[in-house]
């Protein structure tokens, strides 16, 4: 089916083909009779041999042969020579079939089946593999079979690693060999096998892979291996806590829903109808086991024993980077409370790869509970008026102190040296796509390892320039470099209090909400959310975002502006379902309803929520609309929005608006119009 140039067939070719077809038909039908009648005579078996020689893909014939073998083995004396003879014949038939088509699944599996009966020697199998590797060193059937033989015969990983050495030295352009190498090496490193310490091995591997990348920069064989080495260099196996909200040493003001008179411009004010505030833990990798036994809370806030911790966003998953618990408070009990949180005092927090959280961390914050003075106003929230400049003395920015991730890591030095060495090598590589991309990644890695505030952020200019270069150099992947550029840009903005505060404001009308303005920045991707947990109002309008992936951690977010972006569907906003504080959402002037292909359908937390669909009142009254707008339905019904803007989208119109009002009965403002009856 592959690789045959298109030529009009000549009549003599067609005649020959028809003749072969008749022969094959006859062979097949005789075979079928034998198979169905369970005939396993020598003649019958020989027929299947002929059939498989012509057509190794005739899978029923391989099944038949297994039945024939089992039949014969049952009839003969248990003489090892007789058994050998029978199985040898099978191996011969497989080899002949493979010569016809060395990618035949049926043939390879039949060989494995024969071997599982305890036959043939490692030597034989490895010799066979040599033959096929020579024919095609990328034949994944052969590589898989090799792993099968290695496991069956307990060949050592070190020996197999040496084999990849040989393959690569023979020809570096062998992705299959590099892949196998990565599997073997990561296993040996994880076991701490003799001579396999990361601080020695990884730098050696960098040298090894340079031959692949520098000889032929456009050959992809070494790219992904190098990226894996970078991951091994930069990322620590043991999970670490990256940030929290509230953060250590901060003060927060808690209140009921409503306005406080003279609210503070120094602290975050959190208002809640439910009488609880979120406690957010953000880890550097997905972990499980966050519970009231592994995270202890010391406080006089009543009613918080046996706190339930939830992974965000996947409830059915047991692991996540982000974990949230809700601490209760009573606003009619105004007081000041110190809250002490201890993370990981007792074991139990484990990463998805099985590494324990072993750096217990303690943080303390103060909660000032205030009573509400006035009723909450339901005036429309503006994105342009009513903002105050960020007070430079605002205490909230102290919460930007992200924990020094690497101080828990002991062998830090080799990592820094490895990165430095790579930066030097790639810095002198002539203009190539992989050169620039790798350099950008290396500089990002260097930034991530910097703990000294004085030098934080120095690399970003160069990184952003590299991505700009790549957008021009490799225009097919423009959007990939754009996304990376946006990520780097946001890392830069959040790299220091000073740069972040240039984008911060206070929204006077809502208890001096902390507002972050990131509009008109050509952002195509959200990043650095772990540093933005304290943000309550976020303006991302006039950008190029097509998804809210990442925002689910922003549990304090009550107002979000996504107008004039590239959102294609409500399924792209699925992460907002977890932002329970959200009251104001602007998705006007996007592309919702414009595209037939939904690229975020399966990223929703429950793409098959069909069984839940239509079970509530709205669903029962409007089954047709609920299925038509299923993703809008799922997002909106989980939120308690007061203000929504959807104008300027293809989906907007009378039908959708009236549907929205049914799904969100408490909505006060729709597209700037106050809804009656609220």
């Amino acid at each position, binding site marked *: 089916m592959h690789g045959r140039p298109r030529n009009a067939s000549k009549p003599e070719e067609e005649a020959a083909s028809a003749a072969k077809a008749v022969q094959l038909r006859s062979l097949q039908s005789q075979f079928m009779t034998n198979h169905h009648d369970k005939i396993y005579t020598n003649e019958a078996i020989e027929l299947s041999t002929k059939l498989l020689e012509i057509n190794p893909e005739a899978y029923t014939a391989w099944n038949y042969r297994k039945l024939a073998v089992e039949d014969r083995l049952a009839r003969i004396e248990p003489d090892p020579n007789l058994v050998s003879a029978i199985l040898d014949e099978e191996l011969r038939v497989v080899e002949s079939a493979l010569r016809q088509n060395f990618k035949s699944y049926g043939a390879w*599996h039949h060989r*494995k089946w024969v071997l599982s009966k305890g036959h043939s020697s490692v030597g034989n199998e490895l010799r066979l593999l040599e033959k096929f590797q020579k024919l095609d060193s990328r034949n994944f059937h052969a590589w898989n079979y090799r*792993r099968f033989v290695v496991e069956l015969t307990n060949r050592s990983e070190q020996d197999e690693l040496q084999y990849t050495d040989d393959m690569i030295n023979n020809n570096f352009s062998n*992705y299959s060999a590099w892949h196998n190498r990565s599997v073997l090496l990561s296993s040996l490193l994880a076991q701490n096998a003799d001579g396999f310490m990361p601080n020695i091995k990884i730098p050696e591997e960098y040298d090894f892979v340079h031959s692949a990348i520098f000889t032929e920069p456009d050959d*992809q064989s070494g790219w992904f291996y190098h990226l894996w080495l970078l991951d091994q260099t930069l990322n620590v196996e043991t999970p670490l806590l990256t940030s929290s909200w509230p953060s250590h040493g901060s003060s927060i003001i808690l209140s009921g829903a409503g306005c406080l008179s003279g609210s503070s411009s120094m602290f975050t004010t959190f208002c809640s109808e439910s009488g609880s505030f979120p406690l957010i833990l953000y880890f550097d990798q997905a972990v499980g086991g966050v519970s009231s036994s592994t995270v202890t809370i010391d406080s006089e806030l009543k009613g918080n024993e046996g706190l339930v911790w939830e992974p965000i966003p996947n409830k059915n998953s047991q692991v996540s980077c982000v974990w949230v618990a809700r601490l209760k408070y009573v606003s009619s009990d105004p007081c000041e409370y110190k809250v002490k949180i201890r993370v990981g005092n007792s074991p139990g927090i484990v990463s998805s790869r099985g590494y324990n959280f072993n750096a217990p961390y303690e943080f303390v914050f103060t909660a000032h509970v205030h009573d509400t003075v006035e009723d909450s106003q339901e005036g429309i929230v503006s994105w342009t008026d009513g903002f105050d400049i960020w007070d430079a003395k605002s205490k909230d920015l102290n919460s930007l102190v992200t924990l020094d991730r690497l101080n828990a890591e002991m062998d830090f030095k080799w990592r820094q040296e490895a990165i430095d060495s790579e930066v030097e090598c790639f810095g002198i590589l002539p203009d190539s796509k992989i050169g620039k991309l790798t350099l950008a990644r290396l500089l990002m890695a260097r930034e991530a390892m910097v703990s000294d505030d004085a030098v934080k952020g120095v690399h970003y200019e160069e990184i952003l320039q590299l991505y700009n270069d790549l957008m021009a150099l490799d225009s097919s992947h423009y959007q990939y470099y754009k996304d990376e550029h946006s990520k780097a840009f946001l890392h830069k903005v959040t790299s220091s209090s000073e740069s972040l505060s240039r984008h911060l404001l206070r929204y006077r009308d809502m208890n001096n909400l902390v507002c972050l303005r990131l509009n008109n920045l050509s952002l195509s991707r959200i990043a650095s959310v772990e540093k933005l947990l304290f943000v309550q109002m976020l303006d991302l309008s006039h950008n190029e975002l097509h998804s809210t992936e990442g925002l689910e951690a922003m549990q304090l977010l009550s107002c979000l502006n996504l107008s004039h972006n590239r959102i294609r569907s409500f399924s792209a906003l699925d992460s907002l379902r977890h932002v329970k504080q959200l009251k104001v959402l602007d998705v006007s002037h996007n592309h919702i309803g414009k595209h037939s292909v939904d690229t975020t359908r*399966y990223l929703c937390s*429950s793409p*098959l929520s069909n069984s839940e669909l239509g079970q509530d009142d709205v669903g029962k009254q409007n089954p047709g609309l609920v299925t038509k707008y299923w993703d809008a339905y799922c997002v909106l019904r989980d939120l308690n929005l007061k203000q929504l803007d959807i104008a300027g989208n293809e989906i907007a119109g009378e039908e959708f608006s009236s549907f929205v009002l049914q799904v969100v009965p408490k909505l006060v403002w729709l597209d700037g119009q106050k809804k009656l009856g609220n």
Partner: protein
Amino acid sequence: MADKLVADKHLRYILNLMAEKKKESFESVVMDHLRMNGAYWGLTTLALLDKLGSVSEDEVVSWVMTCQHESGGFAGNTGHDPHVLYTLSAVQILALFDKLNILDVEKVSNYIAGLQNEDGSFSGDIWGEVDTRFSYIAICCLSILKCLDKINVKKAVDYIVSCKNLDGGFGCSPGAESHAGQIFCCVGALAITGNLHRVDKDLLGWWLCERQDYESGGLNGRPEKLPDVCYSWWVLSSLIMIDRVHWIEKAKLVKFILDSQDMDNGGISDRPSYTVDIFHTYFGVAGLSLLEYPGVKTIDPAYALPVHVINRILFTK
């Protein structure tokens, strides 16, 4: 160079294949055992071109049922042995015609569920070949039949995740090299079961987007291989499921697919000027569907069936 999809020619190409006279070329006989797959490829293409009505539903459906084995599984053609590969195609064909109700769902689902192994993996049939393709098949098929609870989904998912490689891709078994076809199967299975958070989308997305060949705009299946129209499905659907499709240049890919058409006789080949076949015709049209090419109905990237067919199944009890 082609500038449009010659849908009418492809329609005729497919209908000719399904008619009697084409059956007796050597190419056709040698693929006799996978006729069920061929039928699925042909019929789904027709459905995407809104021409499913051109075939006799009764003829197709009754032939499909002759391929069902007493074990509940379906064979590639009448008389052959059952296998999950053909069981999925059979169920998909019945779904296209909205004829799932003629199935003994218990029987079919028990056949598939019975092939799950201790470690969560799936065998293709009683002979025990294990491959993540079969994990996808089991999950996709049982999901369509609404019998996912017959298998241990958690173990199935964990097994698939154990086949995840350090480059972010997936292979056919633990430790096997990443390959776009296997990636489609694993990502599809994780998508259907709501487990895409187990995928490193940025890492895999970059590996996938680098399948696009700068010159031709076509996609290959793994590094340093030739571009091939069938990867317009496997790479593209994977990218769509993880929301990274904007990382490739869509217009160039459209051109590669259109250039691979046989403008005279219909059908699409693996690359421009090569021999056409039903396999590549389907993947070319399905790829164009995912690229929102006008005149082609939308296909679901996980189930590989038209979206309206999937919605019909998922949104009714």
